[in-house]
């Protein structure tokens, strides 16, 4: 009995292959975009864990305020019985950027110390080669490809290595980083901390930091991943709208069959079970397709994601994707869950279907007053939730709750708003054709509402995100122009070269501006402290958001500090507050400056004060004010022997920063386009599905004297009108979204608030896109209408329906 009934149920799909395709593709797209985003997130998190292990941040670490610890301290600690291993940490040139070089001592590293562990994959076969000059470097495949400089030791490629980090013996690393006799930090075995007293006593300014694990990196990038997840969820929701529509239509078309099967003796429970099993099988097939699609999406996007995380957060992530069983499982799970969500209503209806329920082929598309009320109430409730989230919500979750409630509320309200709008246009219309056009458009709304909701969400997201990105770009460009005050930047190879540079420039008209900094902790988080030279170029150009009246004088006198916006917002700091710097010095905050793109807190103090507080500060980097940067760069190379790689001009730094910016938002752009494509697909499938069901409404109009060609034109015009009006409603929603992104999400995620700029030309481009997509979606059904045989239309007038 079950087999016979199942075959009867499945025969529907044989007769409606397009509907089957819609269902499977909709679910596959939803699953694909969702699982693609999840794959990217999983890959990034795995990278964070590897990076945390590689940096030794999963153990207690000793660091000095000056940035480096003399090797003699390490030796003294070992002699005192401390189980401690030294690490040298720095950056070396690699390809177009730089990579992090970690020097470790393989002999003293504990066996479970991750960098030593990763040696097994690379250096175990040749331990002497690793230790003895010229040594060996161990790097992940993606990182190894960037190590092309001739002076570097041979590279061993290891899959176990952390992305973006190169491992070498400490002696080799000290040479490459010019840190002979110094180490960056000392990593402690946890058990030794409890028995031998306080390790901070070995050197003044030495601080013991508790293990951080990958939590620091994860916290830093949480916003980015939440952003990706939100996009994935949005695409998933848009895909589910397609699936819901397809399942609902299949149900209504099969209602007579359900009725017959019940009348012939199939119990309701069996029928429900069979339909559920049928949906589950389709979900498995679509899920598999979706996972493959997700892999393709993730593989295509992950290089840009890696670039984003490197550029915006300074976090290393491998630009390659590996297959993880958990991800396959999650993808399949979400496909089944999505099908359950989309088909639950249908299964419920089948379970409660009376045996003699009449066939109502268009009932699924007809909105009754109760449904309209429920939709309106839902929209109002969600609008209240959005208001509540704005008033009382906290953190990123509060921000995203506001976004979700706002978008869903608008989506639910869309059919009601369009119905009201088309009611008005119908009343204002003059002529029978126009009256019919608007009245009929209004009647089509319930059956197109899911696709239109999908379009609204996609368009609003596009407007919101592009407004945010363009505002960011405009602000960032202006900020770069202000902030990069020097015309040329030079990093000396060592202190001697730095001194030669100083002496040489002292005889020339150019001005030398030291750019020196130390890294440390401020209010428990990593931060940078910069020294600012006493030069009018800074007060003239530095982009201040808030400041005491004599801020620069205070900085010059060594009394005041400037803090960046992200530090001020995170810690609730204001001008006039007092701030404890690494090492314990307390200074008054004289001003707050904008510092876009920097993930860390930053403080700027007068240069003499920086040198006084941190005598060990590295003094190698300088900015130079000059009217002839090219000539000066050439002179620096030819006369002082400074390598070209140590000199960069303002224009190339700007170009590089902008490139980082563009790559950062390439992922957002790609997801934007994908979401729009899914929405376009939703409209196409809805229109094609409706094409056949529209005939009973079109045939009488044709019979009464409207030619098929004109009907087709009107059908196309209707699609354009629906897309156009949806765009008009998406515009304020998108701007509201942009406002939330700029004033709530960005502030929570990055710590800075951006001004909002409007880009009408961009809206016009998007409106054209929406209209073109709608025209493409409507063109085929309209073309089919012009080619429709009169016999097909005449069937409407006979009893063959």
């Amino acid at each position, binding site marked *: 009995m079950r087999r016979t009934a199942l075959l009867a149920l499945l025969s529907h799909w044989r007769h409606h292959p397009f509907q089957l395709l819609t269902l499977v593709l909709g679910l596959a797209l939803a699953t694909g975009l969702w699982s693609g985003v999840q794959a990217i997130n999983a890959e990034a998190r795995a990278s964070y864990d590897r990076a945390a292990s590689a940096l030794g941040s999963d153990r207690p670490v000793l660091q000095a305020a000056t940035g480096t610890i003399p090797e003699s301290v390490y030796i003294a600690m070992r002699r005192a019985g401390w189980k401690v291993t030294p690490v040298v940490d720095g950056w070396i040139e690699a390809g177009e950027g730089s990579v992090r070089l970690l020097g470790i001592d393989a002999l003293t590293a504990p066996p479970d110390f991750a960098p030593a562990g990763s040696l097994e994959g690379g250096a175990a076969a040749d331990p002497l080669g690793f230790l003895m000059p010229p040594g060996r470097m161990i790097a992940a495949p993606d990182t190894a490809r960037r190590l092309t400089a001739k002076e570097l030791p041979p590279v061993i490629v290891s899959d176990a290595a952390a992305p973006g980090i190169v491992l070498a013996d400490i002696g080799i690393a000290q040479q490459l980083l010019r840190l002979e006799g110094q180490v960056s930090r000392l990593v402690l075995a946890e058990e030794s901390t409890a028995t031998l007293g306080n390790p901070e006593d070995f050197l003044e300014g030495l601080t013991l930091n508790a293990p951080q694990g990958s939590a620091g990196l994860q916290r830093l990038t949480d916003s980015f991943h939440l952003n990706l997840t939100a996009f994935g969820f949005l695409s998933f929701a848009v895909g589910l709208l397609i699936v819901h529509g397809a399942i609902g239509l299949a149900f209504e078309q099969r209602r007579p069959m359900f009725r017959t099967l019940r009348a012939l003796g199939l119990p309701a429970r069996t029928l429900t079970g069979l339909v559920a099993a049928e949906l589950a099988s389709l979900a498995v097939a679509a899920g598999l397709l979706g996972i493959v699609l997700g892999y393709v999406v993730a593989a295509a996007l992950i290089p840009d994601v890696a670039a984003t995380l490197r550029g915006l957060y300074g976090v290393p992530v491998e630009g390659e994707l590996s297959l993880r069983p958990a991800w396959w499982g999650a993808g399949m799970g979400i496909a089944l869950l999505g099908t359950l969500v989309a088909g639950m209503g249908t299964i419920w209806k089948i379970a409660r279907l009376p045996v003699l329920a009449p066939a109502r082929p268009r009932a699924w598309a007809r909105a009754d007053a109760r449904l309209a009320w429920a939709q309106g109430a839902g929209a109002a409730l969600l609008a209240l939730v959005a208001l509540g989230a704005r008033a009382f919500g906290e953190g990123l979750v509060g921000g995203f709750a506001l976004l979700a409630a706002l978008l869903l509320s608008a989506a639910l309200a869309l059919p009601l708003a369009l119905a009201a709008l088309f009611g008005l246009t119908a009343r204002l219309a003059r002529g029978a054709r126009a009256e*019919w056009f608007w009245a009929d458009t209004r009647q089509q709304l319930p059956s197109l509402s899911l696709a239109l909701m999908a379009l609204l969400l996609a368009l609003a997201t596009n407007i919101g995100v592009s407004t945010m990105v363009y505002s960011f770009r405009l602000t960032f460009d202006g900020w770069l122009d202000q902030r990069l005050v020097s015309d040329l930047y030079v990093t000396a190879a060592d202190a001697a070269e730095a001194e030669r540079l100083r002496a040489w420039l002292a005889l020339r008209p150019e001005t030398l501006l030291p750019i020196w900094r130390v890294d440390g902790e401020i209010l428990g988080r990593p931060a940078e402290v910069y020294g600012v030279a006493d030069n009018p170029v800074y007060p003239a150009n530095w982009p201040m958001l808030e400041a005491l009246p004599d801020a620069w004088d205070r900085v010059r006198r060594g009394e005041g500090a400037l803090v960046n916006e992200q530090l001020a917002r995170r810690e609730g700091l204001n001008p006039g507050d007092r701030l404890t710097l690494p090492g314990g010095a307390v200074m008054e905050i004289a001003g707050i400056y904008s510092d876009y793109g920097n993930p860390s807190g930053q403080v700027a103090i007068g240069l003499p004060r920086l040198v006084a507080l941190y005598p060990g500060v590295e003094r190698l980097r300088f900015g130079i004010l000059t009217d002839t940067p090219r000539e000066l760069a050439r002179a620096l190379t030819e006369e002082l022997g400074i390598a070209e790689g140590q000199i960069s001009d303002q224009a190339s730094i700007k170009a590089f920063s902008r490139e980082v910016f563009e790559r950062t938002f390439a992922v957002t752009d790609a997801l934007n386009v994908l979401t729009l494509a899914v929405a376009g697909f939703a409209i196409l499938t809805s229109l094609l599905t409706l094409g056949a069901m529209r005939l009973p409404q079109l045939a*009488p109009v044709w019979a009464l004297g409207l*030619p098929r*060609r004109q009907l087709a034109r009107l059908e196309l015009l209707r699609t354009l009108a629906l897309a156009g009006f949806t765009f008009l409603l998406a515009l304020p929603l998108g701007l509201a979204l942009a406002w939330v992104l700029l004033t709530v999400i960005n502030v929570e995620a990055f710590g800075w608030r951006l001004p909002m700029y409007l880009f009408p030309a961009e809206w016009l481009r998007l409106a054209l896109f929406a209209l073109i997509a709608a025209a493409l979606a409507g063109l085929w059904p309209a073309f089919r209408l012009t080619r429709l045989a*009169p016999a097909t239309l005449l069937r409407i007038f*006979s*009893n063959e329906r």
Partner: protein
Amino acid sequence: MSGPRPTPLLSVSGLTKRLPGADRPVTVLDNINLRIDAGETVALTGESGSGKSTLLHVIAGLEPADDGHIRLDGQDLAALDDTGRAALRRDRIGIVFQQFNLIPSLTVAQNVVFQARLAGRNKASWTAALIDRLGLAEHAAKYPEDLSGGQQQRVAIGRALAPRPALLLADEPTGNLDEATGDAVLDLMLELVSETGAALLMVTHSQRLAGRLSRILHLSHGRIAG
């Protein structure tokens, strides 16, 4: 001695229509010849499948003929393209379908005036009177789905007569109605046809209803009998 016959409103000569069959085309209408003068009411009867509805559809220009000529007011339908045939239907022909085929998105009043307005011949006083005569005044603002079958058929008749067509084609207009309602609908239709001077060609299975029209044509196996 009577004068020459006036030019017929509708003349059909040598009309043949074939439809695709399982093996070869099936001839549904075979060399049909007929003429209908202005103001004449003609019943078209015949068993199921005899081609009555097809003949009506071909005369309305809804389907092309394979052979022969159809002239309405001297205008040969074969010479018209899809747009021309649509214009002819709009301007000269009213059609009443058995399934009513009202436009669900328009109100009763909008449905009645729809074709007249399409043709640019809507006369408010006439359509108002028509709505009143059809007993639809109190339902004018309702939508078709809110009406009974008889009421919907009256809306369909009103829509067909509103532009004052020269020829009214009705395909079993009372086929979905009970006898009493059917009689009432036919009475009203004949009355209005007589007032407007339109000719009526009505397909019906009922000999009783056919007998109330001025002439009966019987279609059998695609040919007019007798």
